[in-house]
């Protein structure tokens, strides 16, 4: 009898192994990183990416893909930086409306049976436009409490690590353990059987989109807390990063197979990959290429662990 590793386990072990290997490499290159401050500096910018990755994962879990996460996070960051310090109520209302808009997108996509890629592609222009309208040139300011939260120091464990663990656990409970999570993944796995069991696929999808919007908003706020201000293009890269994070974390594009813990680890890995490269001191010409090479190597690692498929 051949050994049977549970697919969930395999899903998690690959990103975790990549992270550990990369971290070891970074420590070796730069022993100074092996400190409280060092870990914080290495990982704190991964916190918003991790949140955005969870947001993307929720969409991927229902077999859709969100190309607007980057602009949406930028938009949320702009709203946070512009309104939160002075008119917190208005800021909250706008962000809540944005989450509602996300839910609405889910609704439209389901009712009209539209390809999510196109709708979110269109929405990425809309969010980008709104962000430019709110904040035509970079600026704004992080609310004091948010800045305080994002730079909070815990004794012993750096904030970035605490935050990542909390995000991972909350997402795990939500997506893997809760009934809603089961329903969301069920829609990704076989929407027809979910609806035959008497569920409203529409509601599940709307919930998934709304949750995704919520996590994106949190990502935008976390980002502002770290950078202290926003601009309309601040998080454009999160779209691709979040997709890469989900895949790196062991998720699949279709079939509702996702792993929240893996996604967070994936986000950390991606962030760490960038640092690893700066520590290597490659010629500027090749620094961009090296990012690609690292992605390839990290993803190539999956091969070692997942030889079983074929």
């Amino acid at each position, binding site marked *: 009898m051949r050994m049977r590793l549970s697919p969930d386990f395999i899903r998690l072990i690959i990103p975790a192994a990549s992270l550990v290997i990369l971290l070891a490499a970074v420590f070796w290159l*730069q022993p*100074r*990183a092996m400190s409280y401050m*060092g870990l914080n*500096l*290495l990982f*704190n*910018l991964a916190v*918003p*990416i991790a949140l955005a990755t969870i947001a993307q994962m929720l969409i991927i879990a229902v077999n859709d893909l969100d190309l607007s996460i980057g602009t949406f996070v930028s938009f949320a960051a702009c709203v946070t930086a512009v309104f939160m310090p002075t008119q917190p109520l208005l800021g909250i209302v706008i962000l809540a409306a944005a989450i509602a808009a996300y839910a609405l997108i889910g609704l439209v996509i389901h009712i009209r049976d539209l390809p999510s890629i196109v709708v979110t592609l269109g929405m990425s222009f809309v969010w*980008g436009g709104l*962000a*430019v309208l709110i*904040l*035509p*040139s*970079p*600026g*704004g300011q992080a609310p004091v409490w948010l800045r305080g939260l994002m730079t909070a120091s815990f004794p012993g464990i750096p904030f970035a690590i605490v935050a990542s663990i909390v995000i991972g656990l909350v997402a795990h409970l939500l997506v893997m353990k809760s009934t809603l999570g089961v329903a969301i993944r069920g829609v990704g796995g076989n929407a027809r059987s979910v609806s035959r069991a008497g569920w409203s696929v529409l509601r599940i999808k709307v919930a998934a989109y709304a949750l995704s919007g919520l996590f994106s908003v949190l990502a935008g706020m976390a*980002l502002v807390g*770290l*950078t*202290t*201000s*926003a*601009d*309309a*293009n*601040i*998080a*454009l*890269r*999160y779209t691709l990063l979040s997709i890469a994070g989900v895949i790196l974390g062991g998720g699949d594009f279709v079939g509702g197979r996702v792993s929240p813990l893996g996604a967070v680890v994936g986000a950390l890995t991606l*962030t760490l990959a*960038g*640092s690893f490269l*700066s*520590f290597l*001191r490659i010629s*500027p010409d090749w*620094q*961009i290429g090296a*990012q*690609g090479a690292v992605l390839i190597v990290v993803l190539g690692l999956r091969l070692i662990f997942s030889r079983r498929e074929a």
Partner: protein
Amino acid sequence: DTSGKKIALSNNYAGNSWRQAMLTSWDKVTKEAIAANKVAAADAFTTAENQATEQAAQIQNMILQGYDAIVVNAASPTALNGAVKAACDAGIVVVSFDGIVTEPCAWRIAVDFKEMGRSQIEYLSKRLPQGGNLLELRGLAGVFVDDEISAGIHAGVKQFPQFKIVGSVHGDWAQDVAQRAVAGVLPSLPEVAAVVTQGGDGYGAAQAFEAAKRKTPIIVMGNREDELQWWKKQKDANGYETMSVSIAPGVSTLAFWVAQQILDGKDVKKDLTVPFLRIDQANLDESLKTTQKGGVANVEYSQADAEKVIAEAK
């Protein structure tokens, strides 16, 4: 004595000739400085994509790497403040240039982008005293430089009300995007007397006018070699006249020397300005000669230049 100090360049974008020239200048000047034992190291870093978040991470890594000074061309004037503050707190000197940062603990070597925009209109007011229609070619929406230059242009139009902006398009500072955007609006525009630009997009605009078989207006150029070539060709053929203005990519080397001076214990004001580099009909030929084929008109700075700029600011 700064011979043991290490300086890093944090750059967020390498995707155009200007940035490439900037990196080349840095490389050239810092190599000499290291050879002359002025500093111990001067490494350049570029992010994969033009994103503030990535650059913030890059700066945080530089803190870990133990650089004594960080010279940054920032993706956003404010989004790096968190990382810059962390660097300052770690006792690192931060000098920003071109794309400056607003964090008070950092030094700024600023170009007066507003003035760069306004001066274009001023120049045009001399060429076209009776005024005329303007087409404004902008950069990337939501980016600080774009907003500043555009504000300057609009201030200029207020100052010289005989001009009227009849169209404004975003060329994203990319030649082909600019060409496409201009070609798209051109049919809807009345006679255009001049095109005001943000640098480097003039050639694309010229081609769009040519393709649409419209009369070539006065196009303000941005110091790219191909623009200057085109200008010269026009000048030789029919006495075409314009001006060209942009920030010199070599300003990175000025920032380098300023950082070195600060590390050396010099008292340096937080805000310094550099003039932009302007080319006129008179010095066109000369500038063309010194500009690399396919590159950008450039000036590199020496330690003495830096000392002069610092002294002037006092």
